[in-house]
């Protein structure tokens, strides 16, 4: 286990380049156990790329990712997940043709105690592990407040419900750290309120949360800390209050006056670099 000063997640000088394009450029931040941290920044700032580096989907070209002091850089995604890092995807990635319950059972794959012979012979161990998995899947679906039919194909659920299933699936992995990539995207106002409540309850489970989110209202309400990225670089790291008043952040989002002709994004390149 970690000592008090070892962060749960330590991202150190993370770099990712695709050919000549630098997507993540020296990103450094830490997440403490139980933290709720948001990563924000304009489109194309490298937020999702950073997520993909942390979870093993991209191999970073430099820097390191440590989980509880242990180096997990360049592990394959399933190995990162096995260490207790769970994630959702920016564009829903449910197993659409499978049932909602099966989707959530995916998160329990590593914990189910049965092998191929148990399955062939339907041993008591098989029945027990299936029963436990089903009950646990229901509990997670209750936890996220799913209203739809759990026995039906996941793709038939409304969009907001599918988002809940994806979070339930990620929670079923039993994570210490949960990365949510734009969980509020496409949700209506009341769904966002429910999401906010859900995020708080996830935090109460002792799961550290890292969010990528564009909805500033949500970000300001839920986050303890905010990291702001622009063009792959970290331009601010602090409490919501500090970040809101940070001139570099305001500039990244709004651009500066003199650059408005060429568009705010093009303007900030020169200002930031």
């Amino acid at each position, binding site marked *: 286990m970690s000592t008090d000063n070892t962060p749960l997640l330590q991202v150190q000088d993370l770099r990712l380049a695709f050919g000549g394009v630098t997507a993540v450029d020296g990103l450094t931040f830490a997440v403490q156990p139980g933290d709720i941290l948001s990563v924000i920044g304009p489109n194309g700032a490298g937020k999702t790329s950073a997520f993909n580096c942390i*979870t*093993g*989907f991209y191999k970073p070209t430099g820097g390191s990712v440590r989980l509880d002091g242990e180096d997990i850089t360049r592990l*394959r*995604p*399933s*190995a990162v*997940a*096995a260490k207790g890092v*769970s*994630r959702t*995807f920016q564009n829903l*990635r*449910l*197993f*659409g*043709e*499978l*049932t909602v*319950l*099966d989707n959530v*059972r*995916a*998160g329990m*794959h*590593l914990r*189910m105690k*049965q*092998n*191929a012979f*148990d*399955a*062939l012979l*339907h041993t008591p161990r*098989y*029945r027990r*592990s*299936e*029963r436990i998995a*089903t*009950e646990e899947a*229901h509990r997670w679906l209750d936890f996220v407040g799913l209203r739809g*039919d*759990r*026995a*039906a*194909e996941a793709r038939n659920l409304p969009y907001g419900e599918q988002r809940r299933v994806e979070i339930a*699936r*990620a929670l079923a*992995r039993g994570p210490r750290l949960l990365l949510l990539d734009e969980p509020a995207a496409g949700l209506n106002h009341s769904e966002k309120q429910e999401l906010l409540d859900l995020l708080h309850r996830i935090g109460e489970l002792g799961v550290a949360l890292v969010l990528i989110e564009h909805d500033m209202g949500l970000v300001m309400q839920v986050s303890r800390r905010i990291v702001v990225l622009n063009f792959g670089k970290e331009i601010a790291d602090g409490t919501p209050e500090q970040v809101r008043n940070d001139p570099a952040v305001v500039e990244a989002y709004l651009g500066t006056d003199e650059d408005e002709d060429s568009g705010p994004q093009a303007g900030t390149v020169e200002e930031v670099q």
Partner: protein
Amino acid sequence: MASKFSALLESRYLGWIGLAIALLAPFVTATNYSLSVMTSALLFVMLAVGLNIVVGYCGLLDLGYAAFFAIGAYTSGVLATRYDWSLLATIPVVIAAAVVAGVIIGGPTLRLRSDYLAIVTLGFGEIIRITANNLEITGGPSGIFGIPGITIGPLDLSTPVAFYYTCVVAVGLAVLGASRLGRSRLGRAWRFVREDEDAAEAMGIHTYKVKLAAYIAGAIWGGLAGILFGAQLTAISPQSFTFLWSALILMAVVLGGMGSTPGVVIGAVFVSVAPELLRGVADYRYFVFGVLLIVVMIFRPQGVWPTRAAERAPRKRRTTKDGPGGPGQSPQDRTVEAGS
């Protein structure tokens, strides 16, 4: 009414119904010819459920499945004719050979994307056939003769009727086994990989290992079917394992409904029996067969009996107090758990 019918189709007695049909078929017709056709149909069923593990459950396109079938048939055939093993004794060796073959072909290729995999497996199927054609131990182009029938001690199972029933038992177990694997932790992992590899990885599923497991399972099913094939024909040659076989088995899987056990069984029976039933139209039978297949694919592109993801009985509600399953209840409350 319709729901009653579909409930019957999804009932767990379905397997028993299929078994009863297979057991009773010889009482309808038991000429040597019809028994041979029915036995071939059973072998086809076994091959199709084996390929279904790879293609249907795991979503890996395999165009060389006959290779595993050939490996099983040749391994048991060589051991039985040259070293006088009984066919039953060859089973462990065949399984080992199938696993090795599955690892050799799957190991380097399963990192490829699906369409590349299809080409490699196509090549693998041809390599095995051509190897058998050129090796001395496999009898070269003329193959192996005089493969003995299956015997258990004094019990001779090589008469057409006895062999048919032997196949009913063996294939029945193979179908049951494949379907049970499909509903297990591993079977779900196969489907997760088929649906979305990245999301499966994110859930801690080592997709490469899971795909290799599907490949090995498919190889074992194919290899074991090869033993029965050798025992049925008593002779095998490289011509028995052409690409047409791989294509026909794949056709059975696609036609029946990928991933669906009853669908694949029906597809296999159709693909193997239809050309025989169409002997009446003589030279045109493969033409008619082809037209039938096209018609089915136009009107049922998802297969004759596609999978429908639904769970019969998702939840035991311990807290519900409002009595046993009334019609107004939500689907979650329907019945007791499926497995129990």
